[in-house]
């Protein structure tokens, strides 16, 4: 790390390049205008100072043409900023479909990341208020070069913000809600992660590193062959596998079965599909929807089912939820249960499927 900051901060993502282009467009435009006004003011202050113009002043009340000009021209310039800014924001706001997903959970005062393959790491935080196990797994967030990475962010307590200046990305991390941030790294190296939303005493220690590695190294990292994150963390199965264990442990499978006697909808193929809710509403089943359904089951009840599910609020941690979502996502049609033609489809079961669904018969 150099002693002096460089002129343009390190750029390590596609968004960073887009940000810089827009930033410098605004800078050059506004600096030009600002300097012209400065020059005009200084010129007036020198040329029209009392000793140079001791006589009386002209009675000038204004000019409609000038007023219109300096209303319309700045407006047009501002809207070029606006349009370009919307384009960059649109890019930054919508992650591509095929992005690698990493769950990141913020809590006072550390970041915990979970990979779909099961790797976990704690990035940053104040070691002084961590458990021994947490301290042992402090490391870096490993991401591959040249591949879109989507972070699904949530918080266990207060609002945080996951920002990576080198990627020019930043997103608030809210309790009880899921936000996303994504980037495509373009440069190998290690970069700062900052918490940008004030979160209490050790806010300024809720910092860590993101480590951009080559795709090959990343594959080896995912397989557990390399510890690019800088700490040894045992991988106890993929995130979906952990979720499956939880699904059984919490007895979700008792009701969410494919048996005709099921008391709750089957969940296979649910993720990303359109769900019909009571009150003639529909909703796309995304992370937000699934997690809300676990924590507040009565808030959105699927058409055709009774609101009998108990709330799991307080019983599952944010990490558990990430694992459960990952498991439910992995439930493709027929992956866990057999099918049968004997029974009609439960009303309100996920509809948008590649082919007409057939009713299922439980094998257990």
């Amino acid at each position: 790390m150099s002693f002096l900051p460089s002129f343009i901060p390190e750029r390590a993502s596609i968004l960073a390049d887009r940000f810089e282009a827009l930033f410098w467009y605004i800078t050059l435009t506004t600096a030009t205008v600002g300097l012209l006004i400065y020059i005009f003011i200084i010129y007036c202050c020198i040329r029209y100072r009392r000793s140079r113009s001791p006589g009386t002043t002209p009675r000038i009340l204004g000019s409609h043409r000038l007023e219109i000009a300096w209303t319309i021209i700045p407006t047009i310039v501002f809207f070029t900023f606006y349009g370009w800014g919307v384009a960059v924001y649109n890019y930054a706001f919508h992650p591509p479909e095929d992005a690698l997903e990493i769950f990141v959970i913020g809590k006072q005062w550390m970041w915990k990341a979970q990979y779909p393959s099961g790797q976990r790491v704690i990035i940053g935080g104040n070691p002084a208020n961590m458990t021994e196990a947490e301290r042992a797994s402090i490391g870096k967030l490993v991401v591959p070069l040249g591949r879109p990475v989507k972070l699904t962010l949530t918080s266990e307590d207060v609002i945080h913000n996951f920002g990576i200046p080198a990627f020019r990305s930043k997103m608030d991390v809210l309790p009880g809600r899921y936000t996303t941030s994504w980037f495509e790294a373009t440069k190998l190296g290690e970069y700062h992660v900052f918490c940008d939303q004030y979160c209490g005493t050790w806010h300024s220690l809720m910092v860590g590193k993101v480590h951009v590695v080559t795709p090959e190294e990343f594959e080896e990292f995912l397989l557990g062959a390399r510890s690019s994150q800088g700490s040894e963390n045992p991988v106890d199965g993929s995130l979906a596998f952990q979720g499956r264990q939880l699904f059984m442990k919490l007895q979700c499978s008792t009701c969410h079965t494919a048996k005709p006697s099921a008391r709750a909808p089957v969940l296979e193929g649910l993720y990303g599909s359109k769900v019909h809710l009571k009150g003639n509403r529909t909703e796309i089943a995304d992370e937000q929807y699934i997690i809300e359904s676990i924590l507040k089951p009565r808030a959105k009840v699927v058409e055709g089912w009774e609101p009998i599910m108990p709330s799991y609020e307080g019983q599952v941690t944010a990490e558990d939820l990430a694992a459960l979502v990952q498991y439910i996502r992995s439930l493709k049609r027929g992956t866990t249960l057999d099918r049968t033609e004997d029974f009609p489809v439960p009303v309100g079961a996920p509809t948008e499927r590649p082919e007409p669904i057939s009713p299922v018969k439980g094998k257990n």
Partner: protein
Amino acid sequence: MSAVLTRWGLSTTPPPEPPPAEPNYLNHNYSIWSWLFTTDHKRIGILYLISITLFFVGGGIAAGVVRLNLLAPNGAIVTEDVYNRAFTAHGVLMLFFFLIPAVPAVFGNFFIPMMIGAKDLAFPKLNLASWYVFMLGAACAAWSVLVGGIDTGWTLYPPYSTRASQASVVPGVLGAFIAGFSSIMTGLNIMVTIHKMRAPGLTWNRLPLFVWALYATSLIQLLATPVLGITLVLLMVERMWGVGIFDPSIGGDPVLFQHLFWFYSHPAVYIMILPGMGVISEVITCFSRKNIFGYAAVAWSSVGIAVVGFLLWAHHMFVAGISFYAAILFSFLSMLVAVPSAIKVFNWTATLYRGSITFQAPMIFALGFIFLFIIGGLTGLYLATLGTDIHLHDTYFVVAHFHFVMVGGMVMAYFAALHYWWPKMFGRMYSDWWSRLAAMIIIVGFFLTFIPQFIMGYHGMPRRYPNYPANLQILNVMSTAGGSILGLGYLMPAIYLTLSLINGPKASSNPWSATGLEWQTPSPPSIHNFEETPIVVCGPYEYAIGVDQMGRPLPEGPGEGGPIDPASHAGHPYPAGPVPKETEVVG
């Protein structure tokens, strides 16, 4: 035109100077009760002036702790907890107890009645009540500091503020809540006064632009402050009784708080800056001896800012989890509010053109305002633009931006107002040389403090960080060095203004040769301001013709070396009016 000129031509010499022993609002009664139970708008203005000066010093000390601590990357002087309390105290004191009341409650109180030719505000008792309510709020804030301080930041975001913070949040929030009522009372009072108590002939189009600006400010104070009150009550209810409003773990929505909070706090930045803009219009015209360029544009842009200012609160929330479409809408509206601000700057600049400019302290502060406000306004565009806000949000870039507007803009305007109206308020002149020097030091110190913060923020340094990467230390040291110059600059007026009260030369009733009605009263003003109701015959800035708003000729204008320094009058004093003159058209 010519008919009016004839009327001006008929008027005689300037009013005679009042005899020295004339009773005025300061000397008619010296008892402490005559101050504590006064309903005189001038005395209440002075009470506010003393109070907010104390809070400014308090907020300034907190800022000093913050800046000194940032000298080292891991905190130079205090722990993280103390640092968090210091920046919160700085924000709460400066915003709720200095910037918001600064110009409306001090200069608005003191000068709005005088500028519109009234004896007092419409509701003098309400005015006194507003000061007591304000001091009660300040006492609550002081209570919270005495029991340990708040560590939430002035933005008070839950669930941190309602669940996690171990500090005494409730008294501090209660303080801001109570102070809000004072702001509503002042706004209401000023608005009614402007509507109902203008002198004969003082039509809306003849109002000084300071009055227009205060009118727009009052509109915001009246409509937005109740929302802050509601929000703060909800916050306290959640913190004290665990009613789930904002905390998601008990069923609340934390983003709802941000919407409510910014619905007040964004318009509140216009409560702070609009009165400052009004001051600048007064000072620029007086010290360049010109009519304001584009009176209607400057007046209506104040109202435009006040109205549009209500519609863009969510631009503080572009990365807070609001929807994409909400973001593009609020970005669009934020661009719109930049336009009236730009119009004002262009008009002030054009006012200087072909003027006859002198550089007494008020003018240097006013020019400093324009210089700094241009940077503050233009950097706001980076934050209103969605693509750049993602990275710059919650960094020192934002900190530098709003300090350029709030301190570079509003505090400069506050000092311009203080220096401009000081001779009227106290009847004494301060040191011309020291005041100019102080103005220059403040401008230079300001640039040195906050320009490095733009660079830090661009490099990603987050707000509210006592620990930061070592490569940003050099910029932080520069900023702290600039801050110490700025602190020195702020100390100087405290000294020479106080000295002027003791041994300053007596000020004439119109030392700047200004046109406003407030200058038609003696310095300091008599108890009821005007012996007889003034009759207004023309607009506010007829410097070119050389007549005041009552159509009487102006006294000899200030020379280059200051208005009271006899030696300087050998320089180039502006000739006394009236001078018949045709209106010229430019552009």
